[in-house]
């Protein structure tokens, strides 16, 4: 139980924040804030690929055209950033990770997403399958902007949004878990917003 802060009342709560849709410690924003560790990469679609790798080898790779030819879904999801903003009912056009993994033979239990700019993030395989994760390329009816991760980013809305890696270029399939970028810098290895797993040890 936290001690009461003298003179602090907080602003009036948004209906959404009282509806059980917003995890603890989060507030609702209508903006789409940007957070990243370095400059925004600008990939050329001509040479862009998305690859699934195993043991250092590429098992399967899609060009931009090939990705766009795959069956896609309209996804509406609430997203939650570890910096405490949540954004409700975000709309994406995206290919399910299930669709991609169905084209690869594997025994993996974890994935490490890798990105332009060197960013990585790790996830259990069970969290990117069964209709829980996508490769997203449109946001709100328009191509995903570079500062928000375009041309394509992961979308894993049930985990804090740093797991939804921007500028993603592929997944490394792994037998054992391997921490990604923020996970090595003190952020939580799994990142469940409903359990407020912000930092290591939470």
């Amino acid at each position, binding site marked *: 139980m936290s*001690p009461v802060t003298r003179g602090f009342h*907080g602003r009036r709560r948004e209906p959404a924040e009282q509806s059980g849709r917003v995890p603890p410690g989060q507030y609702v924003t209508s903006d789409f804030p*940007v957070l990243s560790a370095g400059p925004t990469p600008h990939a050329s679609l001509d040479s862009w690929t998305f690859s699934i790798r195993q043991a250092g080898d590429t098992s399967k790779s899609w060009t931009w055209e090939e990705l766009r030819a795959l069956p896609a879904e309209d996804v509406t999801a609430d997203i939650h950033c570890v*910096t405490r903003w949540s954004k409700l009912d975000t709309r994406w056009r995206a290919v399910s990770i299930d669709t991609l993994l169905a084209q690869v033979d594997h025994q993996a239990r974890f994935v490490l997403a890798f990105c332009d700019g060197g960013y990585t993030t790790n996830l259990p395989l069970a969290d990117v399958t069964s209709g829980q994760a996508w490769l997203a390329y449109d946001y709100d009816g328009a191509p995903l902007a570079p500062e928000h991760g375009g041309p394509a980013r992961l979308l894993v809305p049930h985990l804090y949004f740093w797991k939804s890696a921007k500028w993603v270029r592929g997944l490394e399939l792994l037998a054992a878990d391997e921490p990604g970028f923020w996970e090595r810098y*003190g952020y939580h290895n799994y990142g469940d917003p409903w359990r407020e797993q912000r*930092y290591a040890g939470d």
Partner: protein
Amino acid sequence: MAGTAVRGRLTWQVATVGAVRPETSSVRTIDLDVPDWAGHRAGQHLDIRLTADDGYVAERSYSIASAPGEPVQVTVERLDDGEVSPYLTEELRPGDEIEIRGPIGGYFVWDGTEPQHPLLLLAGGSGVVPFRSILRHRARIGSTVPVRLLYSARSLPDVIYRPELAASGDGVDVSYTLTRQQPPGWTGHSGRVTPDLLAGVAWPDDLMPLAFVCGPTAFVETVAGALVGLGYPAGQVKTERYGGAGAS
């Protein structure tokens, strides 16, 4: 690069507010007495949690303004549509208790252990706060790493830490660009940072500089992109952003 800066679990603890000092009309620096502070690195941040009497809590992150080894300070800018920053800048008084935890973040940090890389610090508005920690740390460890700081502010009265920055000493070159209002006879830069302005301030890339960029998203996007255009490897450009309505 160093590994995690977070040692074990980060628990909430009660900090007692010491002095609260105005920096500008909308910015305050707050001294925090934290009995169990594990120490921090220059550039890290901490979380503040406020609790209303009905149990409602609000948490936000703030950059640490003091150097490693100094008592903990944060510098907070009031955002008109904010929830926590108006409380911290207008209501908070010496002797008050607030909950904090930290330090947090192991990437946007400068330890001074790589003296071969000159530093380029690029601040937009209150993005200067972590750089005050870095500059103080540099002075405290006796580092001679050459530093250039370019600070973009709306007007001269909006500049945070101006006397301290003016007294930064040898090897630290501070320049300003004022985006909205320049005083008569202003000889610094005017307007938002452009690639041309940056090209005139930035260390040449062949000196292997390390760049830190902190400010609102539009500032960081422009500056970080322009540095890459000047030949800075993306891995040598570390960014930290804030902004978005309601972000503090």
